[in-house]
């Protein structure tokens, strides 16, 4: 979880990454941020997030992103 929050902080130092629940809905993450985030998650956790999982609901908060990572690690 710490890693996810740090990745988000690096993209958006101005937000409280641990407690932001509308990263997509509030327009904080740009399309470029999403690509960057996915590349970095894939590398940091040695996972491969398939395009079917790249959905707004999976990126709205640090929690949602971490839940996605955990699901991918179980695959």
């Amino acid at each position: 979880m710490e890693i996810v929050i740090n990745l988000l902080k690096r993209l958006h130092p101005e937000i409280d990454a641990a407690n932001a629940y509308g990263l997509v809905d509030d327009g904080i993450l740009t399309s470029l941020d999403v690509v960057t985030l996915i590349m970095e998650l894939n590398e940091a956790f040695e996972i491969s997030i398939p395009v079917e999982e790249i959905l707004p609901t999976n990126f709205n908060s640090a929690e949602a992103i971490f839940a996605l990572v955990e699901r991918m690690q179980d695959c």
Partner: protein
Amino acid sequence: MRIKNILQYLEATAARLPDKTAFSDGNGGEALSFSALLSATRRIGSSLLSRGGQGARIAVFMDRHPSTIAAMLGVIAAGGCYVVLDASMPEARIIDIVARAGVSLVICDAKNAARAQGLSLPVVDIETLRAAEIDETALALVRTRQIDTDPIYMVFTSGSTGRPKGVVACHRSVIDYAEALLPALGVSQASVFGCQSPLYFDAPLKEILSTLVAGATTYLIPRTAFAFPMQLLTYLREQQINTVCWVVSAFLQISALGALEKYPPTTLKTVVFGSEVFPRSHYDRWRAALPDAVFYQLYGPTEATGMSCVWRADRALEPDEKIPIGAPLDNTDVLLLSEGGTRILPRDGESSEAGEIYLRGSCVTLGYDHAQEETAAAFVQNPLNDAYPETVYRTGDMAQYNGHGELIFLGRRDAQIKIQGHRVEPGEIEAAAMRCDTIAQACCVYVAEVRALVLFYAGSEAADTLRAALGEVLAPYMMPRSIIQKQSLPKTANGKMNRRELLAEAVALLLKKEPI
């Protein structure tokens, strides 16, 4: 029929195809047929006229929907000049644009009403305008008096002095653009566009003109779809989109995240890209995924009204060959000039020398608003003509001809860069940083490999505080990925900022595998 006002296209198409959809949000959102669009345009225009809209600069501060396009056209019907504002722009930038453009009235929707009210200008709600009666006499009078060199819109681009520049365009340039672009791309009534561009740009003219002139239909794709490929691909399929004119980053989002080969968007038959370099590996994948589609690259600056050159991908490229920008559109002339000012011509079978692109024709816009010096530097006398006054636009873009006689874009003469299709002058970001009293030096560099800006500065301000300050004045796409504080910034031997050294540092920083 003589065309001197772009609304004549809408009137002709609405007579021919009254019930066909002109603009739509898709997915059950707002949609306007051609007759509804014409009616809205005339109602809005009539109401604006009663509010002194003729010859005025009128801001459109609305989200991206069909009624926003009706508002833009309504301003034209009133003989005014529109300036589109966007909720993603920071407050300070909007205030600056509105002041510089001399905006006298703001059209808003419910969502942007509070921010529009904060501008200390008269504000009118779009629904009020749309409910107004049509004043035939007043509209006809505007039309009779109007000439085709009257301005219709203003688009703001990044300026190196730290303030955005407003490019002013008139009917004639836009009519010229429509007449050349539509045949070049094979646009017809059967074309269904999926529009990606924000409306505060000249980029959406491609879709807007195709719709008004040819009777095509344009769907305004929601912005968030471009971050999530599955949403975007579903949208394209459900609306049966067959034509897209997107910035390259929008295509990369689909191919880089692995969606292209798995779910190829096979409804697409015309694929148009531009404004940024399309990495060859991705371009080749798109060509392979959509073998039946026709691909085009467009090139052009805002100052020459939308796009100026087109290349139709009707031959396979060599593995290391750059994608050409092709040849100028009909009724546009490219002057490729060497540093010495002589015209460079294509050479049969081999590449020409490099030169700077100057554009000549009705496409050349009226200039930068309230900026004589900047206008004089870029809108110049044709260097090859010493017989009579002839203004051409000096692009600052370097190019050469390849062995096929096609133009190849080589890069910028200055530091200007493109991010997600937006022009960005690093000088504007540096100037914004220098506005903090405690910052002595600033240098902004672009790391192309990861498409990100890095800002270096010397001063006592903390990096997070500086980021917050920049967020208040810069558009989101201009925000640096990293902001690095230093004791002082390196200088070259002759005392200039050593951009090369800072760029190397930025590359090392962003490409290095740091521990997270």
